[in-house]
């Protein structure tokens, strides 16, 4: 029994189940939520089993159809993949539960949205999981396109003019990004005759072709991750989508191209990467943090504030590139991957509670949202709870992640990134405070109707999980380094 527990490819089920459920949801629109909920409840279990398997038996590779590399598709279950699977599991479960209550079946419009939400969301989930597990460049392309396509459709779901425009911009930007990436893949294949990540890691060397390929792929992925200054498509798309979709877009979808970038830079192209380019990415990251936070401070609508907050947080992820050098590599890697988990949960919770607030108050204009006590005040407090993780205050997981990044910055002597992290934290506190203070103002408006429990509890639970992950950070951090392209000691000391 234990043998089967340790040898069965549990992680594969996280791809198969959502895809199968997506087909079922599409074929039976009246019962569309049912396959969704079953998936939402079972996939996290499989993720947990896969985590257990990894910690006991180590990473493993699954070859599809018996075709080995360089021809076949390999799926690799290693530490970073599982961290991302964990993120998708937690976010997916919460968003699915929330979506059950969000698309009420009274409105004709809402029913149509519900009919299409479930197959698209399940397709997105399966594609994301497949991407996290992929082991070669081309499969990464295909799964990335699946993810993008389903998120575009989801972004356009409510059919409003703003949503359609946002989705179109997203589509065109994505297309540009993925074709750039694909061109890089073509060049790599031409030079090295394989697209398998592990194999490429051994044979790629620093020549002009490889540099060109890396540049093309990086630029393409930067557009898809919405790194400043290529972030223009993100705020409109995330802000005009329905709340569960925004939660998915910010909490999950932006992480997919990010993982590809991390794998590319640290696994395939470490020989090609130069200090100058890593600093360029770091500087763009700093720009994202500062610009995104400043824009968030100026927003009048809650959803746009949260969307610009995502732009800022994405900048933190890109600090991995300059910080992961020398001895601090493992610290920076563990910190940023843990930040991915923390941010995914916190941001998803934030968007979900924003959706509840918009539902209850009927709008999301900050100037009219005051409400101490009652429904609105309590929701705003949940927003603040999710924000604790994003700002990086103890004892949340965001704090532990920031601690690791600060440690890496100090050890490598890169004090300016330290200053940017500190500034980013203060700016984030600023825009969170704008929303939080609304929770305490007495509102003269009549009491608002209560939102149903299913719209209240999932975001609260996810925010609490994100918070408590800070206290349970030991295993996820260790997990992120299993079979990672980086090795070393976490938390360095230079004690003499």
């Amino acid at each position: 029994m234990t043998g089967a527990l340790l040898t069965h490819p549990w992680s594969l089920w996280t791809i198969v189940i959502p895809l199968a459920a997506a087909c079922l949801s599409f074929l039976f629109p009246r019962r569309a939520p049912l396959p969704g909920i079953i998936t939402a409840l079972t996939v996290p279990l499989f993720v947990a089993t896969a985590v257990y398997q990894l910690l006991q038996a180590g990473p493993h590779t699954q070859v599809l159809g018996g075709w080995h590399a360089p021809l076949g598709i390999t799926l690799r279950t290693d530490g970073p993949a599982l961290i991302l699977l964990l993120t998708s599991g937690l976010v997916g479960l919460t968003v699915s539960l929330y979506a059950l209550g969000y698309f009420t079946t009274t409105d004709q419009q809402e029913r149509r949205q519900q009919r299409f939400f479930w197959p698209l969301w399940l397709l997105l989930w399966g594609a994301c999981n497949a991407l996290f597990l992929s082991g070669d460049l081309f499969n990464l392309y295909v799964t990335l396109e699946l993810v993008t396509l389903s998120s575009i459709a989801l972004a356009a779901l409510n059919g409003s003019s703003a949503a359609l425009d946002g989705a179109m911009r997203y589509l065109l930007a994505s297309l540009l990004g993925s074709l750039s990436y694909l061109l890089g893949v073509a060049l790599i294949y031409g030079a090295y005759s394989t697209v398998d990540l592990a194999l490429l890691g051994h044979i790629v060397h620093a020549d002009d072709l490889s540099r060109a390929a890396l540049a093309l792929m990086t630029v393409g992925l930067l557009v898809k991750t919405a790194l400043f200054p290529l972030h223009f498509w993100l705020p409109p798309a995330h802000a005009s989508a329905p709340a569960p979709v925004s939660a998915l877009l910010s909490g999950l979808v932006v992480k997919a191209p990010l993982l590809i970038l991390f794998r590319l830079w640290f696994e395939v192209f470490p020989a090609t990467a130069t200090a100058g380019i890593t600093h360029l990415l770091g500087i763009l990251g700093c720009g994202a943090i500062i610009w995104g936070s400043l824009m968030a401070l100026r927003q009048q609508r809650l959803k746009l504030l949260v969307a610009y907050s995502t732009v800022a947080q994405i900048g933190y992820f890109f600090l991995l590139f300059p910080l992961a050098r020398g001895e601090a590599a493992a610290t920076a890697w563990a910190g940023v991957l843990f930040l991915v988990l923390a941010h995914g949960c916190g941001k998803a919770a934030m968007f979900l509670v924003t959706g509840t607030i918009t539902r209850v108050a009927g709008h999301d204009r900050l100037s009219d949202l005051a409400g101490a006590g009652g429904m609105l005040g309590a929701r705003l407090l949940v927003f603040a709870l999710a924000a604790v993780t994003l700002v990086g205050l103890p004892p949340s997981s965001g704090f532990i992640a920031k601690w690791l990044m600060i440690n890496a910055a100090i050890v490598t002597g890169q004090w300016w990134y330290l200053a940017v992290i500190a500034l980013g934290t203060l700016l984030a506190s600023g825009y969170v405070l704008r929303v939080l203070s609304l929770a305490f103002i007495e509102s003269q408006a009549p009491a608002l109707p209560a939102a149903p429990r299913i719209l209240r509890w999932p975001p609260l639970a996810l925010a609490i999980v994100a918070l408590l992950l800070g206290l349970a950070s030991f295993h996820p951090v260790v997990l992120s380094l299993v079979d990672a392209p980086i090795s070393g000691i976490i938390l360095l000391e230079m004690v003499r």
Partner: protein
Amino acid sequence: MSLPLIYGAAGVALFFLGAYALFAYAHLLRKILAANIMGSGVFMVFIAMAGRTPGAPDPVPHAMVLTGIVVTVAFTSVALALAVRIARASGRAHLPEREEEP
């Protein structure tokens, strides 16, 4: 110059031409066409790579191109559907000016 190199260079040129057109033109249909041209450019590079070895062409890039074509068709159809919807909903065939202001 070898044949693969010519095709490859042409493919890259198409890619950048399409990228320029994607930014330069405002009309949605032109943008979608531009994206398609970019895609075709990339596929040409793949095909060129298939012929880099002497003898029979390498089948793997062909398989990749086929997959890529399927993906591009899917994207194009979604893009066209979105463009039609936008035209119906707002009466224009281009995206509104980007505002960063709230």
